[in-house]
């Protein structure tokens, strides 16, 4: 093959793969099958300004009801039975001699999760230092499944959304201070939602740009009064996008609306 043919093939590859990405993006946004929620700054964290970049992404903040204070991303419902349902091989007892090697080598999996927006903010007393900015979030992760249909069947109402998350299994032998636990336990840990951050297109990005200036070190602290709100949709592929970004003043809608 001649050089020109290889270059032509390379250009075709660029166009086809980019076209495929755009087609999938449009397909995802055709129907918000995953659901739609109205979220505020409590659930959508603005990243600090890096350099003079105007590219803006917001990070989704969520919580779980946890059985142990140190397991800030291990929900109480994510026990051995649930992990087995999700396809993890949890057949080896946590006290077995090769349990550590077995669970350590188990790769994380991409699963579907159900999230619910609670009406009231969480009790600040229940938060601990691990929660960081997510301590004030009203978005709670309540269930997981290998496929989205069972979740939608279990939570048919629109207050529940379905998203994707990375989950791994952990054999916990020590507590937060490094002391051995009386009995090792197996738990599931939600690493993060996928994608972790949601792109904010213009004109919403222009609206939020001035809010990014925060004092150094305050990024991980929950905010008392949210300053902006947005609708977040999860589409056919359970990938999110933002619409209707608008500013809030003490919980009320700002006059300068984003259409």
């Amino acid at each position, binding site marked *: *093959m*001649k*050089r*020109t043919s*290889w*270059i032509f*093939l*390379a*250009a075709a*590859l*660029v*166009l086809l*793969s*980019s076209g495929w*990405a*755009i087609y*999938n*993006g449009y397909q*995802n946004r055709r129907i918000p099958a995953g659901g739609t929620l109205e979220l505020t700054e409590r659930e959508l964290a603005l990243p600090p300004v890096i*350099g*003079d*970049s*105007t*590219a*803006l*992404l917001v990070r989704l903040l969520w919580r779980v009801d946890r059985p142990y204070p140190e397991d800030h991303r291990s929900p109480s419902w994510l026990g051995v039975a649930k992990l087995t349902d999700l*396809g993890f091989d949890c057949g080896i007892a946590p006290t077995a001699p*090769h349990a550590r*090697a*077995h669970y350590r*080598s*188990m*790769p*994380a*999996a*991409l699963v579907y999760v159900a999230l619910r927006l609670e009406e009231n903010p969480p009790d600040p007393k229940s938060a601990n230092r691990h929660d960081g900015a997510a301590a004030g979030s009203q978005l709670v992760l309540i269930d997981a499944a*290998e496929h989205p249909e069972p979740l939608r069947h279990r939570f048919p109402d629109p207050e529940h959304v379905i998203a*994707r998350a*990375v989950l791994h299994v952990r054999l916990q032998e020590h507590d937060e201070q490094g002391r051995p636990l009386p009995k090792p336990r197996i738990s599931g840990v939600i690493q993060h939602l*996928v*994608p972790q951050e*949601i*792109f*904010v*297109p*213009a004109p919403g*990005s*222009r609206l939020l*740009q001035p809010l990014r200036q925060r004092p150094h070190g305050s990024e991980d602290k929950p905010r008392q009064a949210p300053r902006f709100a947005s609708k977040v949709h999860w589409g056919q*592929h*359970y*990938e*999110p*996008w933002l619409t209707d970004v608008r500013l809030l003043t003490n919980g009320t809608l700002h006059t300068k609306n984003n259409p």
Partner: protein
Amino acid sequence: MASDLQRAAQQRADRIAAFRSELAELEREQALSLAPEQRTRLEAHHQELLAGFAASFGIETTESARRVSWAMRLGSFLFAVALLAAMVLFLHRIWGLLPWAVQVAIPIMGPIFLLVGTELAARRGVPSYYVDLLALASFAAFIVGLSALGGIWNVVPTAHALLVWGALALCLAYACHNRLLLGAGLLLTCAYVAALWLTWTGAFWPNYMQRPGPMVLAGGLIYAFPWVRRSEAQSEFGLIYRMCGAGAGLLALLILSETGDLSCEAAPARALELGYQLAGLSLGALVMVHGLRLGRSGLANLGAGAFVVFLYVRLHAWFWDWLPKYAFFLLIALLSLALVLFFRQLRKRMLRGVAA
């Protein structure tokens, strides 16, 4: 292909320079002396050849020209890197102000413009170094562009991106005869095979290095490719195929020898680890011997390096905890000495082979 001709011309010019230098040395040692008419004819022929190469391909025919050329290449590399950094940072600066359509168009059109630039530069006979720079920039722009598109549409990262990045690198490698891009393409293909297999098992693909078993298979196939396609075997690309195949396979074996592959339930993890350790040691030695037989020092060094790494990792795992530290390092020293003696014997045997 123009770049191939250019490379061949540069190699011929290098051989002429080496021949001239050796001839001068032989004449000084009075081992050879050319008749005046022979010398004149030879000089005229060389001058004619070098002038033709310089005019047609812009190659360097003297040592001083080569030094200046290296400085120019370094300058242009810095120029290209700085220009790309400036463009990326400028885009970051204005990204939030751009309309949606422009945000989507830039990641697609950036690599396309650079590909067109690569083709035009090659057609106009621009030195291959600059064509290579443009091809590398196209590849980098495609990686950044596709990632940016994924970010704009908030898509779940997919392993297939590794495949299209690898395919583009391979296309550009064959278009510009660029070894770096060929290596990148082959390694991305290996990574894709491992990531795809992990996806099929239900796991999330970015952790593919946790279960790199399929990389051994992919590395083996890449290593064997020059045997299947004979035209590649003797070329520089043949060496890249072998080095990437061996490198990917040996790296995967090194990881497996430490973790064991628990996806294979047929044998206990400890036995599997031992199997991978032995496989890694033997494969390292085989790659070294094969590299020596082919006369490819890069491949032989890779095999020797892998063998030594496997050996020392094992020694550390077996002896570090229970041997006194001084005894452990003494053991390492003795083994290193044994390796030096082994390689010395090997070199002697090779020299005898060359003499015979």
